[in-house]
């Protein structure tokens, strides 16, 4: 983070009651350090454990800057990320800029599939939403905010499992615009085991549903803000309707193929989907200048990966609606 091609920034580390040697390591970093362009001040806040949202709120409240960049402790920013993201704030209506998250621990089937998902499924959708200046989730690994927008939104909340989605919706509800900057890149470690991945998606889905429910007034009343109603419906569709439809369609078509002689039709249907994914992935890989070796994964991506993720989403949706209590769970980082 000292290598950013930007002159005017500081780093505030918020130690959220760590029980290992994090405090000592963070303390050894406090002070002024030589950055690429200027001297960079590193400060440390030690607080009792209260979760990521309280840690971020502590850092935001401590900061005197007009803009704050919120990230995850295990993410790495690309040198130009800040320079490219900050320029959008010349537009006074922009309240936040969502960055581009890339998977750093690739070369494994599961992490490669997630790399493809981040490019095709998440970043492409963010580009589309950015055209309307209404990105619906500012990713945890990189989000640059106008501090006033966070204050207007009432800071990060602790009442959902997806504090980044919730804050984004609150910023949009406060009538700010949100843009996506593909060159503001943050590298993050993706789960390398299926169980970890399912835990992560389980938490994301429940968090998104909780965030949607918090803003249900906007969902059902387009007269408050038509843009925000459209955003919430698209989130509702992606989180609830689409996974259910996808699972039901797969089950239905498998039964139709096995018992009613529709196997050739179903095969064509799957091939059609794979081609569609291939074209879409190709477009995203070209626009993002990504690795072309990810392209063949599109076949596995549609047939298995998305289906597994959708089953996980459906299960978490049911559990959320039944009000089953869940724990946070934490991804074991290898420090790639």
């Amino acid at each position, binding site marked *: 983070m000292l290598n950013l091609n930007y002159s005017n920034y500081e780093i505030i580390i918020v130690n959220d009651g760590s029980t290992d040697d994090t405090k000592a390591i963070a303390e050894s970093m*406090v002070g002024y350090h030589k950055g690429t362009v200027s001297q960079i001040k590193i400060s440390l806040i030690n607080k009792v454990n209260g979760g990521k949202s309280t*840690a971020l709120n502590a*850092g935001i409240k401590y900061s005197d800057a007009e803009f704050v960049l919120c*990230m995850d402790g295990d993410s790495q920013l690309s040198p130009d990320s800040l320079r490219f993201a900050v320029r959008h704030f010349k537009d006074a209506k922009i309240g936040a800029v969502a960055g581009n998250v890339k998977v750093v621990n690739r070369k494994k089937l599961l992490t490669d599939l997630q790399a493809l998902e981040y490019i095709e499924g998440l970043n492409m959708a963010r580009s589309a939403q950015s055209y309307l200046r209404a990105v619906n989730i500012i990713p945890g690994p990189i989000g640059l905010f106008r501090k006033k927008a966070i204050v207007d939104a009432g800071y990060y909340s602790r009442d959902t499992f997806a504090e980044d989605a919730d804050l984004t919706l609150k910023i949009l509800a406060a009538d700010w615009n949100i843009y996506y900057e593909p060159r503001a890149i943050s590298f993050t470690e993706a789960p390398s085991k299926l169980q970890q991945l399912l835990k992560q998606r389980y938490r994301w889905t429940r968090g998104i549903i909780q965030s949607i429910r918090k803003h249900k007034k906007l969902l059902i009343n387009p007269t408050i803000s038509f843009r925000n109603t459209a955003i919430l419906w698209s989130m509702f569709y992606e989180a609830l309707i689409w996974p259910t439809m996808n699972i039901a*369609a797969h089950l239905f078509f498998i039964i139709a193929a096995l018992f009613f002689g529709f196997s050739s039709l179903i095969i064509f249907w799957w091939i059609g989907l794979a081609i569609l994914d291939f074209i879409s992935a190709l477009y995203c890989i070209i626009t993002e200048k990504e690795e072309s070796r990810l392209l063949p994964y599109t076949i596995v991506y549609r047939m298995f990966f998305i289906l597994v993720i959708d089953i996980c989403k459906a299960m978490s949706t049911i559990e959320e*609606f*039944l*009000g089953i209590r869940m724990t946070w769970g934490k991804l074991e980082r290898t*420090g790639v």
Partner: protein
Amino acid sequence: MINEDKISKILFLIREDHTNGYSQIPQKHYLGRILWSGLVSVLLLMVIIYTLPKTILSVSSLLEYSIIVSLVLFLMILLFRYFTILFMAYLYFNEYTFLTDNNYSPFVSIIVPVFNEGKVLK
């Protein structure tokens, strides 16, 4: 290395305005909904079973029709979703500018929350 001369310790209180944890929804409320929707589905199924012999459709042709209609509907929704996203992403890239203003560099705080991440922080 710690720069002792440049460090000042400040003690400040952060007011926590938010509730601890998240609200749980009463299970009975949703179980009731599930039971009601199940009951409605069973009723619909019974209506189909009862009225089907009175129409020109047979069970197998009904299944064939429903498979084809579902397939087409599913593909239409999928294609609409894909092409809407692709088209809007194309519009976004079309208006995207690569220009940066070197004179505009406001002060930014980077907030790094850490919990037992010393290994990664290092």
